[in-house]
């Protein structure tokens, strides 16, 4: 498979009140078309910064991201984002929230009725067509996130970026949304980059799990290929040896101290205590 999305030696330095803080150093990764990749790591390790750089919402200080041979400089609908906090416009209905994206992306490429059908089709994918005329505050958190996913898919992105999409949901709702996402993924074969804290979620959904070391100067520490056959069933996998092996490897990485870099690169003294989260309002782990 060709390399579709390439992160090349990405480094990111934030200016904070107490000096500069090197959040990311030398992050390189190649992602193939149709691949589902999870980024996992402790809070503040710069996962979200990586995602924001791919999205174009932030610029890398050094290096960069390339999608289909073109360097990413600005945000755009071909790299649609599912935000952790659903990020629906509270004054627009479910339908209108998706419509806002569809009208912009398919401006003249689809007729009015085609757009209408396309919006409904995407809401059906996430089983939300019935709530099309509800306002975001009238539906539950899980349903809001479904709409967020529908809005993302409706843009027909080249890459789907998910920033802890299920992090704010309870375990049961999260499981149901993961199943929905797997069904959609089986059908559409999107290229997905997902940030998560949840080891089970990473193993269940991903083709590859990218484990990141802690900051400062966080980077990619290990990459784990998940060769579990699809479709995957969470009940069957609970007893599966391969699944548990993968799980253990990730858990081992996260909790045995291997996520810590041996040498901490601190650009200027005094900045070592700065958490990446406090450096800028734009990044959230």
């Amino acid at each position, binding site marked *: 498979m060709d390399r579709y999305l390439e992160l090349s030696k990405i480094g990111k330095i934030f200016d904070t009140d107490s000096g500069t803080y090197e959040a990311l150093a030398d992050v390189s990764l190649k992602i193939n078309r149709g691949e589902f990749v999870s980024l996992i790591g402790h809070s503040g390790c710069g996962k979200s910064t990586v995602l924001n750089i791919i*999205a174009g919402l932030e610029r890398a200080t050094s290096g960069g991201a390339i999608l289909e041979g073109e360097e990413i400089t600005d*945000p*755009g609908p071909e790299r649609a984002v599912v*935000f952790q906090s659903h*990020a629906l*416009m509270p004054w627009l209905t479910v339908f209108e929230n998706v419509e806002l994206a569809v009208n*912009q*992306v398919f401006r003249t490429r689809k007729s009015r009725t085609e757009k209408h059908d396309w919006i409904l089709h995407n809401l059906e994918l996430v089983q939300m067509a019935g709530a099309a005329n509800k306002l975001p505050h009238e539906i539950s958190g899980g349903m809001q996130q479904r709409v967020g996913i529908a809005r993302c898919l409706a*843009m027909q992105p080249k890459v789907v970026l998910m920033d802890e999409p299920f992090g704010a949901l309870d375990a049961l709702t999260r499981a149901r949304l993961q199943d929905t996402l797997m069904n959609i993924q089986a059908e559409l074969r999107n290229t997905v980059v997902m940030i998560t804290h949840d080891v089970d979620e990473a193993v269940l959904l991903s083709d590859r799990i990218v484990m990141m070391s802690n900051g400062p100067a966080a980077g990619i520490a290990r990459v784990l290929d998940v060769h579990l056959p699809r479709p995957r069933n969470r009940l069957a996998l609970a007893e599966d040896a391969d699944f548990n092996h993968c799980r253990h490897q990730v858990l081992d990485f996260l909790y045995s101290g291997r996520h810590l870099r041996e040498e901490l690169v601190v650009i200027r003294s005094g900045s070592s205590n700065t958490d990446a989260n406090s450096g800028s309002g734009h990044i959230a782990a």
Partner: protein
Amino acid sequence: MAEATERLLAPGAYFDRVNALGRSALLPALGITTFLLLWQLAASSIETSLGDFPGPRDVWVQTSNLVDEHWSERARAEAFYERQEQRNAERLARDADAPVRWRAYTGKPTFFDQVATSLATVAFGFCLAALVAVPLGILCGLSDPIYRAVNPVIQVFKPVSPLAWLPLVTMVVSATYVAENPLFEKSFLNSAFTVALCCIWPTVINTTVGVAGVDRTLVDVSRVIGLRPLTHIRKVILPAAIPMIFTGLRLSLATGWMVLIAAEMLAQNPGLGKFIWDEFQNGSSDSLGRIMVAVVTIGIVGFLLDQLMLVLQRRFSWDKQAILR
């Protein structure tokens, strides 16, 4: 019987009922009554060269006087136009080509005419200010460079008193506004521009804060979707910033209303301010009472204008559940 009394005296039930009634009507009524009593007491003990300070009773008497004067003035105006029409008709009947003159009635404006003039002036000045302030505030909120450039100017002109502007505005208007058939009186424009200059700032500042404070994720969504600037403002920025914009507009309107009275007094422009000044110069035994009517009227109109803004905010805001006060 005993049971009923017991229930009536049960502390919970009793206080619940008193609470409900008190919140809705009793407490405000109590407050107003106490105020009126204190006012009457204080008024009768303050003596001026024009008689006692007006109490609530004088205000009531003068209010009905002003209403009567208004209607008699209206009747006089009507009689004048009737006579004029009759005269002209007779003249035309005698000679079809006879020169006919129509004159407007030039009676003295009544209290209510002055209130209407003041309302029209403040409305014009306020709308003018809002038309400039909201777009400017949106620009400042969206773009940090523009904000940094505009902010010093705002900070300098914000604390300037309307009375300082007034002479300049008057001179500029009389120099530049020379029309054959002027649509507006010059005095009207003087007052309106002075109002506009003073009530532009709260709206600019609050709109800027509101727009700059729009949830970052929503702005990021807009950037990812790639919304064009105008759609971005219409669909994302405006709905999110509406509460702050209206806070600014309400402050502006209140400022404008206060400024207007002062401007009218100083510049002798028609309106409530001129009414007060005229009564003050007049110096009859009724004058203080009539000024007090104007004072109360200014307060009530100001309150109603604020309520009007609240109604508009409710109309334009997406969040109908929001508690506005």
